[in-house]
């Protein structure tokens, strides 16, 4: 997923769950900073501020055509 294609979702529909650390309101959009479960920093360009769910995480999704799937072992595109 690319930062500009991420969308705020909810626990039921989200593809990824990330812990929010900081967000900047730039008027038209937010630069939202997250920490992933593996400790990597993820920066998303979001059009709404993500409100954390009860577990403290924000759930994000993307439109299907913007989601890239790769095989973990070989790194090749899946479908």
């Amino acid at each position, binding site marked *: 997923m690319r930062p500009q294609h991420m969308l705020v979702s909810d626990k039921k*529909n989200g593809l990824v769950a*990330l812990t929010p650390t900081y967000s900047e309101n730039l008027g038209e959009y937010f630069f939202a900073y997250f920490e992933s*479960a*593996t400790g990597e920093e*993820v920066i998303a360009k979001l059009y709404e501020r993500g409100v954390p769910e009860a577990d403290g995480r924000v759930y994000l999704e993307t439109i299907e055509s913007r989601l890239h799937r*790769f095989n973990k072992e070989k790194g090749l595109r899946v479908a």
Partner: protein
Amino acid sequence: MEEKVAQAACALKLEPLLKRKPSNLYDGQRQRAADGRSIFCNARVFLFDESLSNLDAALHVIKRTEIGLWHSRLDVITIYVTYDRVEAMAPADKIVVLRDGITEQVGTPVDLYERPDNTFVAHFVDSPKMYFFTSEELTEKGKSFLPDADTL
């Protein structure tokens, strides 16, 4: 001969500098003069092998634009070798991504961005970077998107 010199000078915007000797030219101008010699020879294919690596950042951008314009103006095959992804994406109409001499993907810049064939190419076109999520970060819905492959 004068006509061919004028054509090359015009393509490279070197007309005002034609009377100068190469030693009296700045780096970027000197490089353009070298390019002009290639045009003069009526080459059908041009190979730029990291030809911008010695230029400063400002000249880099100018020269990259010039190569793109020159390529379209002269309608010749131009092969441009670079490790710089921006340099590759900006002027190209087709890109061949190589790793260790093996072709990873061939396509337009948009192809590479919209549909990278593998994670190497996805990393190559990384402005803005693509995030790869592990199974720990994916929700059940996220996992269900990867029925035939391990999750990343």
